[in-house]
């Protein structure tokens, strides 16, 4: 299958493929927009995702050096009452962990099988002796299990890409996987972040995993992007009516229980989503 010319492999499209090859085909090859609801309680879901995006922005502003008093004032009147709690949790628990050269909201990529793998990091710290620490802020209610996080496409891809392309941040030619740690910090849970150090074995496994995955996608022809057998995946899939896999969107509780992450649905207040004004 020939992918679109400007296609990048990212954590969300790889996850889509792993959930259901047909969803990947509809979304990224046919570019089919299917405007059904993802979750039934759409307003709460939207609000939750938007609050998450606002919180990410607040941290970004903090890391850029905007005076904290200004950010406090913004957090205090945020329409979502959780945000001020998250903000206080952050201020109490995180800043002392942020030693080093900061790369905020930075993107890196690496080639694989003539394709491009891309990751967009909330924060990468380059610390003494070239330790590289990835931080990912999560605002979802649940503090996920370490094993689950280790298996997550995001964890695997972000650490792998940093090992391959992190030299552009450190100014060195090579980065060894042992230099890398990925930290997930859950805003509603003020404890320490869940820390996932990388190593050579995991790096090799990730490389094989992504190569196999991409090769599989490239080898498939149109008819071979099959629908998933796991119909639970269809509950939180926009294409469910197109596939005759149900009528109503799954509920928000199930969404949480499924350990899905609202941020994976790219529902952020990205500038690029705001149509550019042609002036």
């Amino acid at each position: 299958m020939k992918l679109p010319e400007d296609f990048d492999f990212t954590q969300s499209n790889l996850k889509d493929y792993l959930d259901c090859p047909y969803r990947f085909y509809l979304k990224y090859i046919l570019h089919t927009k299917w405007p059904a609801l993802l979750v039934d309680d759409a307003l709460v879901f939207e609000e939750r995702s938007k609050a998450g995006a606002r919180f990410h922005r607040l941290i970004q502003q903090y890391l850029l050096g905007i005076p904290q008093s200004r950010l406090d004032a913004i957090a205090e009147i945020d329409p979502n009452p959780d945000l001020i709690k998250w903000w206080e949790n952050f201020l109490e628990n995180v800043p002392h962990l942020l030693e080093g050269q900061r790369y905020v909201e930075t993107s890196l990529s690496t080639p694989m099988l003539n394709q491009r793998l891309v990751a967009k990091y909330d924060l990468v710290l380059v610390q003494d002796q070239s330790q590289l620490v990835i931080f990912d802020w999560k605002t979802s209610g649940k503090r996920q299990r370490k094993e689950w996080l280790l298996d997550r496409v995001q964890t695997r891809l972000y650490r792998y890409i940093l090992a391959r392309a992190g030299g552009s941040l450190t100014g060195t030619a090579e980065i060894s996987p042992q230099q890398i740690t990925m930290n997930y910090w859950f805003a509603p849970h003020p404890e320490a972040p869940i820390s996932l150090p990388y190593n050579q074995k995991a790096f090799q496994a990730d490389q094989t995993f992504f190569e196999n995955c991409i090769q599989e996608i490239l080898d498939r022809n149109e008819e071979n992007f099959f629908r998933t057998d796991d119909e639970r995946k269809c509950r939180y899939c926009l294409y469910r009516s197109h596939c005759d896999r149900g009528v109503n969107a799954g509920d928000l509780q199930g969404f949480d229980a499924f350990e899905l992450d609202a941020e994976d649905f790219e529902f952020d207040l990205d500038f690029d989503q705001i149509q550019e004004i042609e002036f």
Partner: protein
Amino acid sequence: MPSSKFNLFGYNSTMPLTADQEKLLKQDIKSKYFLQGPAGSGKTRAGTHWLMKLIQAGIPPHQILIFTPQRTLSLAYQNALYQEEVQAPGPVNSLTLGGLARRMVDLFWPLVGVDAGFGAPNKAPNFLTLETAQYYMAHLVQPLIEEKGLFDSLTINRNRIYAQILDNLNKAAVVGFPYEEIGGRLKSAWVGDIEQLHIYDDVQFCADQFRSFCLENNLLDFSLQVEVFLKYLWTSPMCRAYLSQSYRHLIVDNIEEDTPVTHDILKEWLPDFESALIIFDQDAGYRSFLGADVESARSLKDSCDKIINFDKNLVSGDGIRQVTLGINNAIARLKGTPQPNPEPSFEAVRTAIVSPAENPKYFPGMVAWVADQIANLISNDVPPGEIVVLAPFMPDVLRFTLTNRLDELGIPNRSHRPSRSLRDEPATQTMLTLAQIAFQSWETLPERINLAYALVQAIDGLDLVRAQLLTAYAYKKSESDFPLQPFEAIPPRVRDRVTFRVGERYDHLRNWLEKVNEQAELPLDFFLNKLFGEVLSQPGYGFHDQLDSGNTVAMLIESIQKFRWAFGEQLISDEISIGKEYIQMVNEGVIAAQYVQSWETADEDAVLLSPAYTFLISNRPVDVQFWLDVGSPSWYQRLNQPLTHPYVLSRTWEHGEFWDSEDELAASYQTLQRLSIGLLNRCRKKVYLGMSDLDVRGYENRGLLIRIVQNILQHARRETS
């Protein structure tokens, strides 16, 4: 993965570089270069190779900034990174002035909210799209028109009034003068009746009202984004430090199409970069009506370490080059200035320009001639993708007639946009009509015929005749009861005609709508998501498996969502239903006027039909161009914009001067010269001139362009003989 589409102008490691391009690429990357040359001289391609040179030198891509006047112009650079041999460790950043301003205001909002005078500085800013800005303008100006009689001497469509006031605000921002001076500047240059001066006062009044309203409500239209950025962030050490740390290397393309404020910013910013390449197209400046300023672009030369010239157009064949010389001469003669070039060869011009032996009287005759010539070219092995048909604006009727004719002849063709706007798409109409039924409290029940059309779209197996029959019996506009009756409530003979199966589907849809009607009002976008997902895209309904309809509905929902996000609080505090307001604005043509984007891969090897300016900006050379309606003044005349003026509001305009007919004529010559030379620079072999005695609107076709062509031919013939 490499794209043939981009390789002509973009990065291509297998195509040899020209001597000029080699010369640039031999330069040291630690310097700042101003690269100038005519269109088609390989500047952008050189720019993409320069980008590769930076990456191969180990510069992290995230430190490289590509700056263009329009996002699509950075595509050649973005796409270069997708070439197999390029191993870039990350994407490069592309920005436009608007993108830069919006990003910075969003990021540094806590620093500017108070100082810039926003009503709620601790609340998030609300960035307006063109569509939502237009809505707010309508919201404010409409009552002023209706109650206070503003613009009462004008007879243009109201949406054009709103658009032109916004245009003025944007011009003030990108040219760099206070918006409070818009009316004064327009008035000072006006010669004519006094009524126009009142109109300019009204323009200023509305601009003032709009700006105050935006400040009060944290709304930022394009003009306010640019102004806040310039005044509060560009001068802020924190923002400047952020920018200069983030971006170390700069590539600017099409600088001549950008605005004076952009040039000011780049001039100040240049010393912070380790390297820069600024690319300037000598004969262009097509976006002057959007504030582009060639002179201020050229002045960036002085801030660079070295100027590099690309002299030769690599695209045009000899015949076309001769026509270019001829046009420059002919315009010089018309202006009464010395002729810049020797006379072109008559034979070469004659071969490069083709026109009918005799002009047809009406435009369908012209269309038929054009289609026949295209068929002829294709039968002589010219690939359809090497043919483009251009007109100054390409009105729908012309595009439609030509497309039909080409289809009849079996000639593949494509157009720069589909012919229907979002609002006119049947899928949009269907969704909004059904919403009006579900939200009975809006008291905007649809007309019976519109409902019938909507049901035809919505229910699989229902035709218009039976839909009309169904709505005649089942639809009752009532204030209290739900307006759609159950299927069983209509007479049995009608039920039989409509059929039981359709009746079942109708009932299911009806019950679903009634249930929504009884519940608390859902935001319109979520309502449409549900209607689409739970009913209309299910088996038995019209959008099941209709991927195109899905795309249209998605675009509609996105437009409504942006509307809700932009308005939410304002309208809720006014107790207006956002959904109802949206539909009203659609009906008034204020919003949903954009065209539905299609992801269908455009057939590259097809004849392209496009407005001339769109083609120019797309930077794509072809073998053959057809220029339609060459007798029409639209090739050089300004649009009729009674509330604004691109020249008077430009930076080069001398305050206190009057804009008179001589200025108008000089502007026409300049527009025509730029446009025609720009097109010729993108043409390899031939230009066909399509013309009829009367144009599409029935006006006589005797404009400047045709006179210039005749003039070239006469002089060339005289010289040759």
